[in-house]
């Protein structure tokens, strides 16, 4: 019998759900955000449903932080799994107010690790409390669904494309809240998405899926720079990393961030030393030079070694660079033309200078000085339900339809 490892989320699913074959195995730390990424129809949602216990594959294994939820002999029904589940539609209960939706899954004894007021503040829900779900926008509904899932005091949050059904405007509205969750709550989270731009902002681990199978799994940054995977070779290639704040140059307003093999200067508001700041470096913002530029406006220039060269179309090449002298540091990506590649005589193992034209700081709008201490127990929301309303409506219509037909029928037969 397979045993569960504390500190890991271990999933092994094989079989088929509605004739869709699934053979998915992965293990990620039960800490931080693990993103499951793949094209539509690759079985991501099926995986989420299996973890929640909403689908049952006979040959499945599911263990969360040392606790077996499913194996050959065990199957915990969904209501006995401490999970917070948020899906694409918010699926709020239409017959309950926002407040009662939020409290639906909250345990009755009062002192809970994830407090009601904390969730209200985190998701800015206070103004919505006494409204009916039918009077909320899509983004608001999704926030309520997240709050409701968090208040059920989960030990794992599963978010299945929580932004999938939202328009880009609502997405922009809600993304900061999603980003804030992992930062504020020490709750492991599985985030399912098909938009790398979202995942890059807050995921720590990545599981890539295709046609029901896992094609790669590992720390996000490692997969982003893996020459064998499609991420590094894509046009939107970028790396995301957590840098550590090591100082601030107040005269010029530059934040100093330390990475392995580099010390970045980024124009930004000050942050407390030691704070971890998520940053993103796009391949197209990095260029290379054979010699150290003597005078230039680019602040962040570091020695680096070429680790791999990936052709991108006919005219461009994406380089995987390891920062630091001798290439012992963090790996980043650089996009250059094939012309420059040939004229500079570049190839694997060549030492160059990487010039970082732009480094974006993610979720920098949130002053991290206010970060809730890590001692706050974890929790995460995740639920959504927008459809029951629509469903109720159609059911009412159908019921009345049947009434008319049956009524005339009944009347005939009574007389």
């Amino acid at each position: 019998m397979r045993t569960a490892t504390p500190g890991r989320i271990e999933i092994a699913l094989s079989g088929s759900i509605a004739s869709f074959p699934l053979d998915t195995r992965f293990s990620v730390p039960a800490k931080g955000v693990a993103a499951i990424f793949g094209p539509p129809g690759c079985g991501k949602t099926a995986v989420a449903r299996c973890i929640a216990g909403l689908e049952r594959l006979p040959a499945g294994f599911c263990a969360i932080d040392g606790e077996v939820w499913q194996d050959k002999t065990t199957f915990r029904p969904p209501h006995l799994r401490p999970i917070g589940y948020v899906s694409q539609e918010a699926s709020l209960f239409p017959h309950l107010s926002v407040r009662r939706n939020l409290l639906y899954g909250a345990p009755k004894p009062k002192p809970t690790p994830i407090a009601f007021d904390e969730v209200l503040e985190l998701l800015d829900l206070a103004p919505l409390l006494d409204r009916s779900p039918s009077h909320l926008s899509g983004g608001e509904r999704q926030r309520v669904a997240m709050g409701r899932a968090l208040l059920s005091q989960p030990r794992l949050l599963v978010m299945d494309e929580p932004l999938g059904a939202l328009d880009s405007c609502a997405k922009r509205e809600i993304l900061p809240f999603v980003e804030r969750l992992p930062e504020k709550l020490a709750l492991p989270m599985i985030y399912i998405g098909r938009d790398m731009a979202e995942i890059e902002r807050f995921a720590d681990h990545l599981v890539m899926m295709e046609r029901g199978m896992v094609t790669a799994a590992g720390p996000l940054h490692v997969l982003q720079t893996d020459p064998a995977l499609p991420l590094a070779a894509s046009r939107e290639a970028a790396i995301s990393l957590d840098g550590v704040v090591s100082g601030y140059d107040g005269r010029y307003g530059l934040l100093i961030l330390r990475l392995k093999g580099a010390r970045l200067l980024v124009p930004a508001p000050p942050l407390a030393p030691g704070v971890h700041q998520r940053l993103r470096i796009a391949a197209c913002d990095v260029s290379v030079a054979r010699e150290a530029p003597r005078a230039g406006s680019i602040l962040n220039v570091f020695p680096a070694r070429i680790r791999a060269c990936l052709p991108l179309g006919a005219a461009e090449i994406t380089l995987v660079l390891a920062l630091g002298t001798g290439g012992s540091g963090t790996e980043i990506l650089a996009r250059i033309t094939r012309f420059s590649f040939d004229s500079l005589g570049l190839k694997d193992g060549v030492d160059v200078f990487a010039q970082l034209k732009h480094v974006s700081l993610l979720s920098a709008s949130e002053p991290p000085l206010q970060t809730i201490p890590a001692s706050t127990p974890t929790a995460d929301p995740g639920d959504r339900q927008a459809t029951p309303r629509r469903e109720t409506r159609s059911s009412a219509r159908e019921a009345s339809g049947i009434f008319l037909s049956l009524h005339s029928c009944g009347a005939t037969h009574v007389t």
Partner: protein
Amino acid sequence: MDGFSPEIWQSLGLTIELASVTTVILLIVGTPLAWWLARSKSLWTEAVATMIALPLVLPPTVLSFYLLALLGPNGPVGLLASLWGGRTLAFTFAGLVVGSVLSALPLVVQPIRNTFAAMGDRPLEIAATLRASPLYAFFTVALPLARPGLLTAAVLGFAHTIGTFGVVLMIGGNIPGRTKVLSAFLFDFVQESRWREASWLAGAMLMFAVAVVLALTLIDKYSRRRST
């Protein structure tokens, strides 16, 4: 109205009592039945649904005939009744309730079943991910969401029982004070050519039917507005 004898007021009370008892039983029996019909994937559902729907197409006399055979002193239920001292259910109020429940069952089960089916799995799945046991989810999510269907079903069941006639005559036996309900009274008035009383009673029952249909329309409209 002075032409109405005390018997007719007694009959009105009896009619309302019959309809109320029948409606309560219909909801208690019909709701779990509709739930099972809407959610079970068993092949039996269609067989059971057919059985339940039969009273819609069967002449009430046929239904009553079989019920009499079942409930009468020599029928299986009659024999069973004799165990607790009863002699028969035929020509009793209890027998009338059984007949009314069976003949109104399809009218009650259908709207509830449709509501449950239209609700889909999602609300219950969401409830389950919020630690709601299936029973708790049924009472806190499924039933409240099915309220329009339940209301429709209750009104239909009540109104149908008020108007029931064939079953009354066959099973009830039209015994004043025990099984003689309004529709049977109307029949007697017409038989005896008491047109004035007959038209009063028929008019009252017509108004009642109009009120029922209006109520159903309003329920439907209200629940739709709530859901938008």
